[in-house]
């Protein structure tokens, strides 16, 4: 009996659904893409995939190369996984995803070792560690295995652009404070480099080490939350403070009156 009543009640909404669906898909696609950059930025808001952030942000070139590596792995893995999502049985899906991601990481690792050896040396073990980056496996599990190819592609692009922008901002601060300026070396030919070091004498070399990395990262996460978030719910109730202060004023006024009468 209840089911029939619910069915009758649900039909008007169901009738309206197909028209809404068309509009929703376009709006959703844009939301999916932009979410990865600001609202759900993997590094600054969701705090996923933090391991490569600190070693990759020691200079701007390192941040760009890490962004390219993560972009390649994330886009390809999301594409492949959403293409094969119907074929893979549910029990062994995690090892399958892991093998796909690991093979992609091996490809990009060997490419970087061959064509940009200096960058590969400075990033060290953190290129193979992209395999266990929480962003990639998390997105594969949560999004790519459930959505269409185009949505997964947009999500991958958005997430990696968010990651790249966060890394770039942190790298700008670290390099400027740590070396006094910016130095851009061509990753494929390390003889060519352009540098602009206006504040070289005032540099703080600790900022390009791990200590400065943690510090800059923490401050930028806090500042990003300050800029993007509006008032936190619950913090606006200042009525208790106001009443406390006004009672205090009354008490002082009474005390003054008492002194005068005495």
């Amino acid at each position, binding site marked *: 009996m209840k089911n029939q009543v619910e069915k009758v009640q649900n039909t008007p909404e169901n009738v309206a659904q197909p028209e809404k669906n068309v509009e929703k898909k376009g709006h959703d696609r844009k939301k999916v893409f932009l979410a990865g950059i600001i609202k759900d930025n993997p590094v600054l808001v969701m705090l996923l995939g933090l391991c490569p952030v600190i070693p990759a942000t020691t200079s701007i070139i390192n941040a760009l190369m890490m962004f390219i590596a993560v972009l390649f792995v994330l886009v390809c893995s999301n594409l492949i996984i959403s293409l094969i999502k119907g074929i893979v049985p549910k029990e062994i899906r995690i090892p399958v995803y892991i093998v796909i991601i690991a093979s992609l990481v091996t490809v990009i690792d060997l490419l970087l070792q061959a064509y940009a050896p200096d960058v590969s040396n400075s990033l060290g073990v953190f290129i193979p560690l992209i395999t266990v980056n929480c962003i990639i496996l998390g997105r594969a599990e949560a999004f790519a295995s459930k959505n269409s190819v185009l949505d997964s592609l947009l999500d991958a692009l958005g997430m990696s652009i968010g990651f790249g922008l966060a890394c770039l901002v942190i790298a700008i601060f670290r390099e400027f404070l740590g070396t006094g300026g910016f130095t851009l070396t061509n990753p494929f030919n390390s003889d060519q480099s352009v540098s602009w070091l206006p504040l070289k004498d*005032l540099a703080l*070399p*600790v900022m390009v080490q791990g*200590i400065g990395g943690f510090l800059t990262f923490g*401050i930028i996460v806090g500042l990003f939350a300050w800029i993007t978030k509006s008032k936190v719910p619950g913090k606006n109730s200042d009525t208790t*403070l*106001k009443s406390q202060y006004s009672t205090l*004023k009354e008490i002082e006024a009474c005390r003054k009156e008492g002194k005068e009468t005495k």
Partner: protein
Amino acid sequence: MESQLVYTNFGRVKSKRKTSHIMLELTGALLVLFISSIIYYCIKGGADTSKLMLRLFLNTLVCYATAFAVEYFGVFFNEKTEIKEYSEVMGVNKWLVALKRTVTNSYFYVTPLITLLLFPIYTPVYVMFISILVGELIGKMIFGGFGSNIFNPALVGRMFATICFSADIAKATVVKVPEAWTISTGATINSFAQSGGWLNSYTESLSNLDLFLGNYRGALGETFAFLLIILGIYLMVRKVIDYRLTITYVLALFLFAFFMGLTGGHNFGGSMQYAFRQICFGGILFGGVFCLTDPVTSPVNGTGKVIFALFAAFGTAMIRYFGSAPEGVAYSILLANMVSPAIDKLLSHKTNHKLVYQYSAIAALSLLVLGSGIGTGLYVKGQQEKQEATPSTSTSQKVNENINVQLLVNSDVSLEGVIR
């Protein structure tokens, strides 16, 4: 609003004294040290006195101005809504409210003075600026102001500046010395064994009295051992600082050096003298009286305090005698600050069952410190004997990065070489 009972942010009732009085007495003690160092450098400075005094004045100005600015805006940043409400209700300008809070609630005048006394006199102004900026901003303001920090802000700033500018600080201590003193080498065991070893009290030409009175160039607050002992006893008696922390720390290091001397070949009297020299030299007394005893960053529990001080003493000993860093006090106090919330958590429930754990932890740590004293003595003696077996012809006289004692050989190095 400030009652007679004193409490920190954690609601612990400590003693019937206002926090502001405690802070003022502490600042008074620091000022005594500051003034005595001014007098010392005026007497001993010779031709460079005016330069030293100018640099000192600039450093003080920079320290206080930066600390005030950071704390003023930090008070606004952390307590904006409260200040707005208070000023609206009471009818006072909100800038003045924040000013009052900076002075009375945030005690901005303590940290810059401690930071100033941790550096040598001729430190570059930029180094001092970075140190106080980072110390106030990162060590105190970001955590939420006074009472919310985990690490001592003066030490955070000091260590940040040390890691960045170690060469500049080393250069800042190069000043004229009247006689031909032997070089002081780095804090590693090998270089000390070369110049006669730790066991021969490498500051050989410094007499006991000179060391005690602070008649050598070092960081501003750390050299005057007699003054620090007197101030420490005064502050302990007046209950400004907790006696358990300071006495445990200094005594543990004294016994460590004593056993090191005993096993290293000195007799009883020689070991006593050696241990006494070891605690007079370096930042041990200053750190033990002013930095370790910060009530916000040390544990609340009584036995927790003893464990905390023992931990810091062990760290100081290890870094000083084995590490590559020149001075171990600041690093070890930061390490102990790192461990103090864990100590608080472990000892937060005082039952009979846990008392056994507390006292056994204290006993274990004390044994560790003293045992490592004995072990270090044996190790250094072994190194020394190895060194004497193969006579080295090196008279390596590299100016090290030891920021406390800087003794130069045979040359009148003027201040012209140290420009910043």
